[in-house]
Each structure stands twice: as structure tokens, then as C-alpha cells.
């Protein structure tokens, strides 16, 4: 089983890393990271903060782009181009395909994240700001966990809908996942039971992605404690497991 999953993951990684759209997005992010030097120069003595903020946000946007747009195409392409017709009749379980695809794309996300993070470190080195290495690594680790959840969401949708709709639905989850601050007042001070129930439903059932966002804190040298990181990791793994289960069930039933 592991061998099969690894084979699919390896193939997915190879396929997505050669995607021109991905390479173009990576190039744009590297340019943005280099551009942070200019932003820093016009920020009046807030140069390191600007580089860290814009740099980590650019990396984060790249991860989200890979998860949402590349992820939406992943299953759809195979269905439309019928490359699945060569794979599915082989001795491979459908959930192995899902897991292989998810792991492969996560590996791609990790690779482009690593490249852009190294670029950011190089820029920070020119400013002598080496104190941010660990906080930034922690930040990209947590945002990679978020990307993994979004990858699985887009895989769930791309199994039965077009890439555009899949991307739209995934973006909705992304926005809802970061709307916690807006939902909390509706939960704490509800104007009606219906609003409270809906707000609670969104807050607890949809993936709460804000916990993976420490970009706002690292610039002040604040990093979450170990317990918080472990809870975030467990949340990501369990939510990813749920999404994987849903994707496997829907894909198992799919006919071609």
C-alpha cells in the first residue's frame, strides 16, 4: 500500500513541479521577495518588519495558490484527459490515489515553500536580521499545514466538479476559515438563535484556519508555545483525515 501511495505521490510531484503555471507563480513570488528590499527602503526604519511581513505573506499566497488552483486541476485533469483510465484498472485502491495525490501536491507545496523561504532568508541576511529564522520557519510550517487542508478540500471538490467551481468552493472555505474574528461577536452576542447557530456551525465545523497564522506575531518576536503548536498540528492532521475520508468515499463511488 505504502509503495503504491508513494508511486502516485512521486508522479504527482513530478507532474506538478513541471507545471508552467506553478513555475511562473514561484518566479513572481521570488520577485516579490526581492522587491521587499524596495518596500523596506520607503517604510521609514521599518525595513525588517516590511521584509518579514511581505516576504512571509508572499510565501503564504504561493502556498494557497498551489493548494487552490493546482489542487483544483489535479483530479479534474485526470478525469477529463482520461489518464485515469490507465490507472484505475490497475491493482490500486481509490483511496491510495487520493492520498498519493494529496501527498504529492503537499510535497510540491513544501518544495516551493522551501525555495522561497531560502530567498527570504537571503534578503534578511543583507539586513543582518538573523533573529527571524526560527519564527519564519515556524510560520511557514504552520501555513504548510493550512495548505495541506486546502489541498484536500480542492481534491474533494475537483473529484466531482469543474476546476473553476472547485477553486471557488475552496476559496469560500479559505475565507470562512479566516473569518473567526468576525464570527466570534456573532456567537458571543447573537442577535438571534438562527444567527448564533449558523455562526457556531461555520466556526466549529468549517476548518478554522486562523490558528495556522502566526505571521502577525513573528514580526514582534512572538512565537506560540509548544502546546499551541501541537494542538494546531493535531487539528490539521485530524481535519485532513476527515477530508481524506470524504474524498475517498466520493471518489470510490465515482464512475467513468
Amino acid at each position: 500500500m505504502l509503495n503504491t501511495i508513494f508511486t502516485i505521490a512521486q508522479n504527482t510531484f513530478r507532474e506538478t513541479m513541471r507545471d508552467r503555471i506553478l513555475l511562473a507563480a514561484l518566479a513572481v513570488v521570488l520577485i516579490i521577495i526581492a522587491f521587499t528590499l524596495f518596500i523596506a527602503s520607503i517604510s521609514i526604519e521599518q525595513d525588517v518588519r516590511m521584509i518579514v511581513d511581505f516576504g512571509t505573506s508572499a510565501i503564504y499566497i504561493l502556498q494557497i495558490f498551489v493548494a487552490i488552483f493546482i489542487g483544483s486541476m489535479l483530479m479534474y485533469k485526470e478525469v477529463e484527459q482520461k489518464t485515469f483510465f490507465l490507472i484505475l484498472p490497475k491493482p490500486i485502491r481509490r483511496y491510495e490515489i487520493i492520498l498519493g495525490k494529496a501527498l504529492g501536491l503537499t510535497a510540491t507545496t513544501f518544495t516551493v515553500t522551501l525555495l522561497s523561504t531560502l530567498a527570504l532568508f537571503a534578503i534578511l541576511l543583507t539586513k543582518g536580521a538573523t533573529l527571524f529564522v526560527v519564527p519564519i520557519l515556524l510560520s511557514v510550517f504552520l501555513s504548510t499545514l493550512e495548505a495541506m487542508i486546502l489541498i484536500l478540500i480542492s481534491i474533494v471538490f475537483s473529484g466531482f466538479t469543474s476546476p473553476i467551481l472547485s477553486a471557488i468552493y475552496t476559496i469560500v472555505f479559505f475565507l470562512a476559515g479566516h473569518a473567526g474574528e468576525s464570527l466570534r461577536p456573532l456567537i458571543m452576542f447573537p442577535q438571534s438563535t438562527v444567527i448564533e447557530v449558523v455562526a457556531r456551525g461555520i466556526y466549529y465545523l468549517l476548518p478554522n484556519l486562523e490558528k495556522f497564522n502566526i505571521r502577525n506575531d513573528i514580526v514582534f518576536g512572538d512565537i506560540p508555545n509548544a502546546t499551541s503548536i501541537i494542538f494546531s498540528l493535531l487539528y490539521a492532521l485530524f481535519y485532513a483525515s476527515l477530508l481524506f475520508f470524504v474524498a475517498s468515499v466520493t471518489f470510490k463511488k465515482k464512475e467513468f
Partner: protein
Amino acid sequence: MNSFVKNNSHLFTGIIVILLLAIIVSAQVLYDHSSSMFGKESFRFTIKHRSIIDPKIVKHLAFGFDNVLADYYWISAVQDFTGWDHKEDFYLNYFKNISVLDPEFSYPYLFAILTAPTEKDKASLDKVAEIAELGMATLPNNWEIPFYLGTMYNMFAKDEAKALHYIEIAAKTEGVPSVVPLTYSSITAKKLLGKKTARELMSVIRDTTKSETIKAMAEEGIVLSDITVMLENAIIAYKAKHRTYPKTIENLTAERFVVIPKEITSRFDIIINQKNGEVSIVGK
């Protein structure tokens, strides 16, 4: 002719492209020339307005990009400061949004306190104080915010009660440099605020800040404070001679009661209060 064009189609394509580019660039140059875009006066532009998202909703639209959005507003504020006419609200709105998106971003509070208050809007310092209060609540160990606010209430609004209130908060902050409580004690002991202590307060800012920009602003504040004292002494001498206050600064300089550097007169308007001879130095 046709065959010549066909055989040299790449050459003709290149010529057409270059010609069109030349026309486009010429049109842009003429446009710039007509609207003085690159003229000497071009950088003294005034920004009439900016469309900035209301602070009440900006946080809900950040979707995890709060700090980057705060940085964007910070850079916008810095870029627009030069062109701000000191009347429009947009400049302060930048800082409102920064404080909402990233209340721990301390530098903008200080920058806003020193740059936002304007003679053209008497309520501007109070508006800045609202923003600064949020900073003080979020950063209780930051003594600079209340101190700078107190300094501006003293120098700008001449509101001694508020000035003392904020300087006291600063003096009692944990980890504050000793010069701050000493200055506070000195002010309360002498029971005076006003022009004499304005210099003292600005000196504290100049000597404690790590920011070169704020240091430069503080030094300018000290210079303006000294000039104000010098002018008011000159006005007293003028009145002693003419039994009336000078209407304009030129009355003083013409009779050599005082010499003001051109650098000051080109950047500031000096207004003499005809009732009590007090001097206000207002940015142009």
C-alpha cells in the same frame, strides 16, 4: 513593390513597431510636459482625497493578512504625508486602520502623534489621541506613546491638564528611562508647562529615541521652540517701543528685532496673536 515588402516583411514589421512606439512615447512626453508632471513644482502636489476602507470593516476584510494590510497603510501614510494638505481626514484614517489591523505596531502611533496634529483642524490632536489610546491599551509598557502625546498637548494644543495627564502615565510606565520621571517631577515641581518645558520635552524625545526620523523631528521641534521664545522676546521689545504688537513678522525683521532663517520662513507661517503677542508657527 509588393514582392519587396513580402521579402522584407520582418524589417517592415520592425519599422512599424518602432514607429508606433516612438509615437506613443512622444505622446506621453507631450502629456507630461503639458501637466508639469516632471516639472520643478511636480513634487509639491497636494492629495485631495484618498478612498480608505472604514476601520470598522477593514479587519473583517483582512482574511489573515492583517499585518501586511497594516504595512500597506503605513507605507501609504508615509508616501502621502508630503502631499497631505493637513485638512483632509484620509491621513488620520491610515493610522486608524493600522491601529485596528495591528495594534501592536508601535511606530505609527508615534509618527501619527508627531505629524498628524495640524492648525487647520483644531480637533486633530484629539483625534490622534483616540488612536494613541488604543496603542496605550495594547502596549501598556510603551512609555513613548503617552509621552509624545503629552508633549504635543503641551506644545501644540497648549492643554496643560491633558499634557500632564499623559506625561504622568509615561513616567509611571514600567521600564521607562529615568529621564522621563525626572522630567515629570521637574515639571510638576515648577508647576509650569508651556514654552519653557516644550524644549525640555522635545529634548527627552530626541535623546531617547532610536529612530533617526523622530530624532530629526524632535530637533526641529526644539529649533521651533527656541525660535518661538526668541520671537516672543522680540515682540515684547517691539511692544515696548511701539506700544502695539507687530502685525507680521516682517515688522520685527525690518527693525532688526530678530533675524529668522529663510529655511523657517519658507516652510512655516509665523502668526502673531494681536491680543496677547503669542506666536504660532504653522506649517505651510
